[in-house]
C-alpha cells in the first residue's frame, strides 16, 4: 500500500482550503479581545464564553455549525461542481426524517500546523455518520464531507466511521458509505493512516456479515480506495467521481504516462475496463434514488433471508415468447437479457457490471417477489464464452449471493472457455477456477436452466448438477456435450472420409438434452414458456433448503 503518495496532491488541495479559510475572519462566539496573541486570545475567549452562553446555546450553535459543514462558500463550490453536500446526499438516500446522526460534536484532535486553531475545527469533522431507514429498513451510513478539509480522513473521521460500522455489525444492518474525500489528512500523519487501517479491518470483518455498499461521489484516491474495494458493491457517479491509487501527476512522474483523471479512474474506466466499479449512475440524485431501489434487493445481514416484496406479476405466468427465442441455427446469437427480462418479475432486472465482461450477465431480480441473483452467459457477446474477466465477474457475484442467502438462477449457453495465449498467459486456469469454486461452494438454492450450449468444462462450471445444483433444467434446444459436433468428429473419426455422416451421428447422439437427462444430470426437459412458473415453484420449495459445508477456518479459494 505504497500509494499514500496521493496525499501529495490532496495536501495541495487542503492547503488551498486552509488559505481560503484564512481569509474568512471567523470570529468564534461573538467575542473580540484586543490584546494577547491569537492562541491565548482564543483560550480566553473560550473561558469567557462559558460564562456568557448557556450550554444549551452552545449545543445549538455547534449543531448549527455542523449542519453547515465547511461553510456556505464551500457548499456553493460543491454545488457548482455538480455535486451535493454530504448532508443533502444522506437526506436523499434515507426516508424523510429517519436519519439519526451520531458524533455531531466530534472534532479532530490534531494540534500540528495550526490545526488546533478554532477556525480549523468543524463540529463533526469531515464526515457525517449515523443510521436511518430506506423504505423503512435499517441502514447505517457515513457520508464524507468534501467541504471540510476536502473530506480528508482524520483520526476522528475514521473513528466516526468505525463506530457506525461496529454498531451495524452488532445489530446486523448494512453499511452504505458515500465517498467524497481527497485522501489522508496529511497534518495528522500516521493517525490518519491508522484510521484507514481501522476501517479496512472492519470492512474485512463485516464482509459476509452485513452488506457493504460504497458509492463513490467524488475523489477517492490512494489508500482510501481499498475501503470501497473491500465492500460488496462499488458504485460510481459519472463525470464527478474518481478512484485511483495515484493521481495523474504521480503517474506522469513515475511512468511518464499522460493520462487524465477521467481516463485513469473515472466511472467509465472502472465500469468498462478495470471492473473495479459495479455500476455508474448519471449524477448524484440519480445515484442516490437508484441506490434506494437497489437496497430493497438485499437482506439486512447474513442472518436474514432475502427480502420478499409484494409482486403484481403472477408467479404462474407463461412466457410464450421463450419458445422461439433460441434461434434454430446453433451458430446464431440471441440476447440473454431478453430471456431474463421476460422471466423475472415485472421485467425489473438490476444488472451489475453491465459494461464489463459483457459475455456474462449478472444482477438482481425478483421471482414472485423474492430476491434472486441471476447469472447468465450472453451469446450475443463473444458467443457467451467464459474468459478471465467474465469468470471473475461471475464468481464475485455468486459469492455475494451465497453469503447473503440470495438464491442463484443460472442461464447456461456457453460454448466453452475462450482459448488463446492472451487467456492462458493471463491465468484463465486460476481465474476460471474462481467461478467454479464459487458455484461449488454456494449453499443457497441453485436453479440452472440450460437454454442451448453447455460444452466442456464450462458446462461443469455453470452451476451444474455435479456442483450441487438443486434444480437443473434443460430447454429442448439444449446441447450438453464435451464440444460441438465439428470439433468432436475431427477427433473421434480422425482421418476418416465420411465426416458429414459422422457429424450427423454425433449431432443425433449429443446435440440435444437427452444424454444429460437420461443420467439425471438435468432434472427435466421443460417447455421454455413454463420456465418462470417452474422457477417460482422451485424457489418456494427450496426456501427451506439447508446445506452446510464442512467446518473450516476459512476456505482457500484460488485468488
Amino acid at each position, binding site marked *: 500500500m505504497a500509494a499514500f503518495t496521493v496525499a501529495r496532491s490532496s495536501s495541495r488541495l487542503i492547503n488551498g482550503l486552509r488559505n481560503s479559510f484564512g481569509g474568512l475572519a471567523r470570529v468564534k462566539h461573538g467575542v473580540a479581545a484586543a490584546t494577547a496573541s491569537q492562541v491565548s486570545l482564543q483560550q480566553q475567549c473560550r473561558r469567557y464564553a462559558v460564562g456568557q452562553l448557556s450550554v444549551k446555546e452552545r449545543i445549538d450553535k455547534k449543531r448549527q455549525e455542523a449542519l453547515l459543514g465547511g461553510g456556505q462558500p464551500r457548499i456553493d463550490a460543491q*454545488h457548482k461542481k*455538480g*455535486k451535493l453536500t454530504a448532508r*443533502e446526499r444522506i437526506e*436523499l438516500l434515507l426516508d*424523510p426524517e429517519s436519519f439519526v446522526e451520531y458524533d455531531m460534536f466530534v472534532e479532530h484532535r490534531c494540534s500540528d500546523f495550526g490545526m488546533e486553531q478554532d477556525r480549523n475545527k468543524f463540529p463533526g469533522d469531515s464526515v457525517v455518520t449515523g443510521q436511518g*431507514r430506506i423504505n*423503512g*429498513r*435499517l441502514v447505517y451510513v457515513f457520508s464524507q464531507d468534501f467541504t471540510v478539509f476536502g473530506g480528508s480522513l482524520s483520526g476522528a473521521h475514521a473513528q466516526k466511521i468505525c463506530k457506525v460500522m461496529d454498531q451495524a455489525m452488532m*445489530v*446486523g444492518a448494512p453499511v452504505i458509505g458515500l465517498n467524497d474525500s481527497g485522501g489522508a489528512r496529511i497534518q495528522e500523519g500516521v493517525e490518519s493512516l491508522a484510521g484507514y487501517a481501522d476501517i479496512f479491518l472492519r470492512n474485512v470483518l463485516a464482509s459476509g456479515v452485513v452488506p457493504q455498499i460504497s458509492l463513490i461521489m467524488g475523489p477517492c484516491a490512494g489508500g482510501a480506495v481499498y475501503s470501497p474495494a473491500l465492500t460488496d458493491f462499488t458504485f460510481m457517479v*459519472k463525470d464527478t467521481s474518481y478512484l485511483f491509487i495515484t493521481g495523474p501527476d504521480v503517474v506522469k512522474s513515475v511512468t511518464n504516462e499522460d493520462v487524465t483523471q477521467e481516463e485513469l479512474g473515472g466511472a467509465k474506466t472502472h465500469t468498462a475496463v478495470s471492473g473495479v466499479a459495479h455500476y455508474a449512475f*448519471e*449524477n*448524484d*440524485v*440519480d445515484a442516490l*434514488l*437508484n441506490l*434506494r*431501489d*437497489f437496497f*430493497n434487493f438485499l437482506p*439486512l445481514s447474513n442472518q*436474514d433471508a432475502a*427480502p*420478499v*416484496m409484494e*409482486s*403484481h*406479476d*403472477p408467479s404462474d405466468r*407463461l412466457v*410464450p*415468447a421463450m*419458445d*422461439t427465442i433460441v434461434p*434454430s*441455427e446453433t451458430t446464431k*446469437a440471441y440476447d440473454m437479457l431478453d430471456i431474463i427480462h*421476460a422471466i423475472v418479475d*415485472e421485467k425489473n432486472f438490476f444488472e451489475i457490471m453491465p459494461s464489463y465482461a*459483457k459475455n456474462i450477465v449478472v444482477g438482481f431480480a425478483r421471482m414472485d*417477489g423474492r430476491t434472486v441473483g441471476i447469472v447468465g452467459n450472453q*451469446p*450475443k*457477446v*463473444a*458467443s457467451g*464464452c467464459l474468459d478471465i474477466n467474465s469468470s471473475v465477474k461471475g464468481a464475485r457475484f455468486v459469492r455475494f449471493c451465497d453469503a447473503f442467502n440470495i438464491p442463484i438462477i443460472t442461464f447456461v449457453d456457453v460454448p466453452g472457455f*475462450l482459448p488463446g495465449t492472451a487467456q492462458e498467459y493471463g491465468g484463465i486456469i486460476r481465474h476460471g477456477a474462481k467461478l467454479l469454486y464459487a458455484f461449488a461452494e454456494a449453499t443457497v438454492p441453485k436453479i440452472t436452466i440450460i437454454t442451448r450450449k453447455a460444452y466442456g468444462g464450462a458446462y461443469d462450471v455453470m452451476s451444474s448438477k455435479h456442483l450441487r445444483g438443486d434444480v437443473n433444467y434443460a430447454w429442448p434446444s439444449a446441447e450438453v456435450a464435451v464440444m*460441438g459436433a465439428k470439433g468432436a468428429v475431427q477427433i473421434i473419426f480422425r482421418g476418416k472420409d465420411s465426416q458429414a455422416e459422422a457429424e450427423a451421428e454425433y449431432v*443425433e447422439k449429443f446435440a*440435444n438434452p*437427452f444424454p444429460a437427462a*437420461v443420467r439425471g444430470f438435468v432434472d427435466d*426437459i421443460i*417447455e421454455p*414458456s413454463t420456465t418462470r412458473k417452474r422457477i417460482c415453484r422451485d424457489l418456494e420449495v427450496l426456501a427451506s433448503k439447508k446445506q452446510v459445508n464442512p467446518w473450516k477456518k476459512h476456505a482457500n479459494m484460488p485468488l
Partner: protein
Amino acid sequence: MAAHISTLSLPRLLVAAKNASLHARWQAVAHSAVRYSTVPVPQEKTFDKILIANRGEIACRVMKTCRMMGIQTVAVHSDVDASAVHVKMADQAVCVGPAPTNQSYLNMDAIMEAVRSTGAQAVHPGYGFLSENKEFARRLAAEGVTFIGPDTHAIQSMGDKIESKLIAKAAQVNTIPGFDGVVETVEDAVRIALDIGYPVMIKASAGGGGKGMRIAWNEEETRDGFRFSTQEAASSFGDSRLLIEKFIDNPRHIEIQVLADKHGNALWLNERECSIQRRNQKVVEEAPSTFLDADTRRAMGEQAVKLAQAVQYSSAGTVEFLVDSHKNFYFLEMNTRLQVEHPITELITGLDLVQQMIRVAKGYPLLHKQEDIPINGWAIESRVYAEDPYKSFGLPSIGRLSQYQEPLNLSNVRVDSGICEGSDISIYYDPMISKLVTYGATRAEALSKMEDALDNYVIRGVTHNIPLLREIITHPRFISGDISTNFLPEVYPDGFKGHQLTAGGQRELLASAAALHVCAQLRAQTFLGTLRVSASSQERRRWDLCVELVGERHPVVVSRTGQTYTVEVGGESLVVSGEWDLASPLLPLKINNTPRMLQCLSRTASGDICLQYLGTSFKVRVLSPLAAELSSFMPEKVPEDTSSILRSPMPGSVVAVSVKPGDTVAEGQEICVIEAMKMQNSMTAAKTGKVKSVHCRAGETVGEGDLLVELE
C-alpha cells in the same frame, strides 16, 4: 420423455418439441376460431389441401378460413421465418429458401416444388409476392394446380397500366385524361403534358407503391420528372416505360371490391375509402366512404363490374378510383388479388372473401345477387406498422416484440396479424405488425371503438405508429369526413409531432404519473414475512411531489384513500382511481370518473415514468420536492455520440459485410457479421445514417475494438 428414447428418433422428437410447442399451437388454433362470414354458406367440396404462398398476417388470415372450411393448409417459409406464426398455424410447412424474398417467397421453383411434395391442390397467393405474377399462375395451371385468383389473362391485362387503361376505356369506364401509350422521349413527354394540361402525373407503366411516380406542374418539372421516373422505374421494375396522365388535385382514393365467378357473374361489394395515405401507402381505411352517395356508389360499382367482365375476371379483385371533389371518378388501376384492406368489406357485407375466392376457384357460381349485398354498419381499419411516425409519417423500425398484446378483449375488434410476442420484425419483410379493424353500427361507434382498441394495444420492443393512427382517427377533419390523399401533409405540414396536450390533458397526465409514483413507492415499502429488524412504518396520507414534463416543473399534491388518489395539480383537484397493477403494461384508470386507458412504458427508480396517454408516449419525472430542488445542481450532460462508429466487440473473422460506403442504413440494420467461436454475431447500426467508410472485408480477421464501419 426418457421412455421414448429407444423408439423414436431423437431429432424428430426435438424438432417436434422445438417447433410445435403445445402452447403456441393452442394459441394459434384458438385464434383461428374466428368466423368472417355472417351469411350461411352451403357445405361444398372444394379442396383437400391448399398451399399459401405468402407469409405474415395474410397467410394466417387465409389459413383461418381454410381451417373453417376443413381444408388442410401448407405454409411456405424462409429460414428466418421457421418459427413464425403462419408456420405454426399450418398443418404442414416447407422451407423455400433463405431470408431475402427473391430467394424464398418469390422463388417460384422452390414453391412449385413445395406444391408437388405436399400434394396441395390449390395455391392461395395472398397479396404481394407472387399474387399478381402471371408466370406463377401459368406454371401452376400447367401442373394442374388451381391458382386461387383470376386467370392469367386478367392478371396480365390488368397488371400493365397502359393496357389496363385501354381496356377500361373500351369498357366505358371513366379514365383519367392522359396519353394512351408509352412516352418515348423527354420532348414527347413535354408535348403530351401540354396537351393534357398541367398538372400531370408521370408514372412507371409497370409501377406501383408510389415508385417511379412524379408530379409535374410545368415544363421543367416534366423534364426532371421524366428523367427521374425513368431511372426509378428501370431500377425498381426493370422496365423503364412511362406514361403521363392528368394529375387530379386533392383527390380521394376510393376503391370498389368486386367478386366474380367463372360463369360470367360479377358483383360489386361496395367501396373502401383509402384516402389516408403517406407516400402513396394506405394508413387508415374505412368502409363505406362518407363521401359517396348511393348513385355514385352504384355508378362506380357498375363500371367496376363492367371492367371485370371485360377481362373475364373471376375471383376477388379491386378496382381503384380517384374521386375528385365533384364526385367525378376516374379509373386508376385494378388489383387482381385480395387487398390488404379486405377485412372492412367483409365486416360490412358479411362475406368471407377468402372463402368466396376458394369457392370460385373451384368453379362454383356466386351465391349472391347484387341486391343481396348490404352495407351493414361501418368498419375502420388501421394499419399498425413497426415504424417511427415522427419521421416522414413513418420510417421502418425493426426489433423484437418483447411484449405484445392485441386488444381482443374488446368486442367488435378484429386483429389480423401474423406475429406474436417474441417475433422479430426484420429488415427482410414488410414492417406491418397488424391490421386493426373495428366495427360499429355507425361510423362514430366504429371510431370510438378504434380509440379504445388503439389504447389497449400493447406493443413493446419496436417503435410503432399508434401515436399517428390515434391522432388521425380523432382529428376533427377526419371525423367530419373531410379527407383526401393529401390529408397527412395538409394536417401536419411540419411533420407529425405526436398528440398535443391540452391544459386538461396535461393535468390528467401529471396526476396519473404522480399517483402511479406514489403507488409504486408505497409498494417498495411493503416487505412480506417477518423481519428480524422491524421496518419502521411510515403512515403517510399526503405526498408533496414535483412532476417534470418537457423541462417544466409542476408542483403536485397527492393524497390517498385505498386505491383512489386525489391529486391537486394546476389549481384543480383530480380523482384518479384504478387497479394499480404495477406488473401490467396497461393502466386502466378513472380520472374524475372518466375511464382512461393509459400504458406504462417504463418506470425507473429515479422517478422517470414513460406513459402512453391518448396514443402518444410522454416522459415525465416524478420527484420529491427535495430531489427536484437538488436536481437543479446536477450538470447538464451532453450525450457522447458513439453511434456513428462500429467497432468489433471481440476478435473473430468477418463473415459478411452487408453495406458499402454511401449506403443508407436504418437503426438496428445488420452491417456485418463477425464469426467468433463458431458463432455468427450480427453487428448492427446504432443509428440511422449513411455509411461513410467500411474498414473490413469478408474473410478478414479482426481484433477486439477494431474499427469496422463508420457512419456519417
